[in-house]
Every structure is written in structure tokens, then in C-alpha cells.
């Protein structure tokens, strides 16, 4: 998965037509850490349907808040520079993420 941050978020996520999935996470967020292997498995499976990125909010706090992400875990999908779908907290389960990818993936 591509690591995005305040330097490349614009170019890698917002400036591309998409779809792009962004996993907002942090090392301190236990549910996020638990989700990592599942999101990575989804990246294997759907890598050709959607671009997978992850963003560590600890180092990119302002960027995250700018994206209206103020809670973890949050998994969002962008198309044409806009956030089109998002799952947060308990809703960010493997099954829900997969369904969201199917809906918004290529």
C-alpha cells in the first residue's frame, strides 16, 4: 500500500481521477492496527480495481482534519478529488470495506 502524507496527498489522491482508497490510521489506534492485515488482504484482492493508500494521522494531523477525519479507524474512497464514501469506527469492518470497494471500485 502506498504511504501518503501531507507532501503527496494532493498528487496521489486528490489530483487523480481515482478511485483511491485511503486508510487513515495511527500506531496508537488499536482497532486500526487490528484492521491492517485485513485491509492489506483486500489490497491484494482488489488492487486492480482501486488504488490503496494509507495515511498515518499522527504525522498528518492537519491534513486529516482538513479531510474531516477526526476519528479512527476511518477508511475513505476518493474520486476526482472528492470523498465519495467513508466508513469509520465500528462500521469500518472488513465486510463493510469490501462492500464499499465493490460499489466504488472500477
Amino acid at each position: 500500500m502506498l504511504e501518503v502524507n501531507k507532501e503527496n496527498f494532493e498528487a496521489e489522491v486528490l489530483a487523480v481521477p481515482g478511485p483511491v482508497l485511503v486508510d487513515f490510521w495511527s500506531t496508537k489506534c488499536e482497532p486500526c492496527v487490528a484492521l491492517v492485515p485485513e485491509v492489506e488482504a483486500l489490497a491484494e484482492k482488489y488492487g486492480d480495481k482501486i488504488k490503496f493508500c494509507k495515511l498515518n494521522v499522527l504525522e498528518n494531523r492537519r491534513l486529516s482534519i482538513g479531510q474531516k477525519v477526526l476519528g479512527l479507524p476511518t477508511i475513505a474512497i476518493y474520486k476526482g478529488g472528492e470523498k465519495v464514501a467513508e466508513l469509520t469506527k465500528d462500521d469500518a469492518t472488513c465486510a463493510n470495506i469490501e462492500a464499499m470497494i465493490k460499489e466504488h471500485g472500477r
Partner: protein
Amino acid sequence: MAVRECDVLIIGAGPAGLAAALYASRAKLSTVVLDKGTPGGQVRTTWSMENYPGFARGMTGPELMDRFVDHAKEFGAEIVRGDVATVSFGGELKIVTTQKGEEYRARAVIVAPGAEPRTLGLPGERELRGKGVSYCATCDADFFEELDVVVIGNGDAAVEEAMYLTKFVNSATMIVVHDEGILDATAIIRDRAFKNPKMKWAWNSVVEEIRGDGIVESVVIKNIKTNERTELEANGVFVFVGTVPKTDFLKGHVDMDKRGYVIANELMETSADGVYCAGDARVKYLRQVITAAADGAIAAVAAEKYIHEEEGFREMVLDRENPVMVAFWSPTSQVSLDFLPAVERIAEQRAGKLNLVKIDIYKNQRVAGRYGITEAPTMAFFRKGQLVEKVCWPTNESELASVADKVIGG
């Protein structure tokens, strides 16, 4: 999909499930623990953990849970990722199935699914979750560096989590329904909080609404004495108002109270045979790590005894070729003690055709109860695993002998 068998299956790897896993695996039972998330449960979401005996200040929730996990694994317990979706407790092997369809069959099950934060159902609460509304300080504190947050609740967990937040935030305003100076939190925690310059207090108050366009911007607070409403600017709202049990998947399978807490007795036995409940998910007085761990230990020992009793009964009675006469006796019933020699004589005279098994009804109430046996002495005759005759209070040797012969004759 794959089916796995084990002796003890534990649902939930919080402190209750992990303590149960330690005890069960140490008793040489094959033990699997299923958890949908990272092992450690709710304790993972709290930093301050200073009331677990033997671990004073400095120990964090996640660190303590890492130790629980290592300790359980040390004796061979296996911790597996899996979200339990359905259970079936009716059979001799209990069946537990995960969301992904993996099936587990176990001789005993310990349910320890714990609890999750209670939500308030305020306008804006649901919409702004992950947008400034949070139930987990360690998860989200970083977002609020130098910002202002509101904390709803005033028990131990709420005040401790607010104090943790003050390491990051500019201010944490506690919304407290009580009169000034009164908190549900214990005195030591209260006193520490009152000394913390970043903590602010709104007394006699409740939050009525959380407002914001996409992210939290303010809360509407109502003073319950004056009914006056004020809007307070805030970047975050942390809610710590107790928990609700995560027992939906157990509905209809074990008895629960109105709020969904599982009812278990002192041995952690639920209403289903061979199914135990430990930790926050059961009806109990104190929901803490230490009591969760204690429940887990008791449940595992009770489950071990259950497994051995069931195994013993199966081997000695149900799986026998010959008919078996089971004498339910009790050391407290003199009649049953007096009658045992006659029972032994009857069995001896029919050696090779009839086996005798003596069961102390008080030590093995479950087996007795399953066959509707409540009094000693009661003689129960089994043939090929089935109960075929039951004689209550047989004080007459010849009467019992004729029943025995009838059973042998088929």
C-alpha cells in the same frame, strides 16, 4: 468451510477470556480463543491502569493486556482472529460459527464478549462519529492537540480518560449532571482531577445536541436547574457513560436480563449446559479487569470439571455394551447409604451382564438433573446410551433385582 474441534472454546480475548484461556490450557485442555479484534478487549482503549493488584502506576492498559496474552499462550492456548456470528449450544459438542463461516466444535464454551461504550442517542452524535465524537481517548486523542474538547460522563472511566486527554488538548470540559463538586468517580480520582488546570467543569448540566457541519463545532448544554441552554464551542466530544454488553449473538441461547447481560451463577454456569460466561458481559456487581480475570479463572475450572464429568459418564455409562445400573446416592442420605450394600449384591450376582456405577448426586447434580433425578437413592438403568428404567427410593432388594433382570432381558 473448515471445522475445528477443541476442548474449550472461548469467545472474546479480553481479560476474562485470556484468564480463562490461561487456566484451561494449563489444565491441559486444548483451548482456542476467538476475538474479532486485537486481543485485550476494552483495556486496550485505556491508558491509565492503576488498580490491577501488583501493577502500580506506570502500567498501561495495552501493556497489561500484552502480558495477559503472552501468559495465556505460554500454556498452549491459541488465539485466533474471528468474529462469532452464531452459536448452537444444544448438542454434546457446542458449535460456534464465525462471520466468515469457520466452524468450531467444543466440549465446553466460555463466552466472554465483554461490553462496548454506551451511546447517548443525542442529535448529531451518530452523524459526527469519527468527526469529533469519540468513545475512545487513546484512539483519537492526537487529533485534538491544542484543541478544546467536551467530556460527557463523570464516573471513574470518564474522569480518568479526560485526564489522559489533558496531555494533548487545550481544555477538557466535563459535563456533569450533579451539583458542583459532586462526581460519581472515586475520591482519589476526583481530587486529582480538581487539581488539573486543563480540566473545566459544567455542573448541573447535560448535553442536548452535538452540532457541526461535517466535523464537531459545538455542543448545546442545558442547565437542569435553570433550564438555560448555552452553546459551547468544542472540537471534540468524548462520551464515557458506561457500557452495554455485546451479547446479541447469544440471544435465545442463554438466559439474560432485560439489558442483555448474561445470567450466570457462582460457577459462571449459564442456563445452557457446558456454557459459561465470564467478565463484563454477565450480570455482576463490579466490572473491572480484576473481576473479569477472576470470572475467567472460575469459568475455566468449572468447564474443566464439566468436561471430565461428561467424559466419565460417557465412558462408564453411555458407551457400555452391557446395561448399566447407575446408583445415585448421597452421603447426606442415610437411606441411600444403607441401601448401597444391597445394590452391590445385585450387581455382583449379575456380573458380566450388568455394570454398576455409583454417582454422588450432590457432586454431580448436572448429570442427575438431566435425567430428572432429584433424590437419593435413585437407581437408573441405561442400555446403549439410553435411560430405560428409573426406580426412585427402591428400599426393597428383591423389587430392584426384578427390575434389573427385566432390563438385562431387554
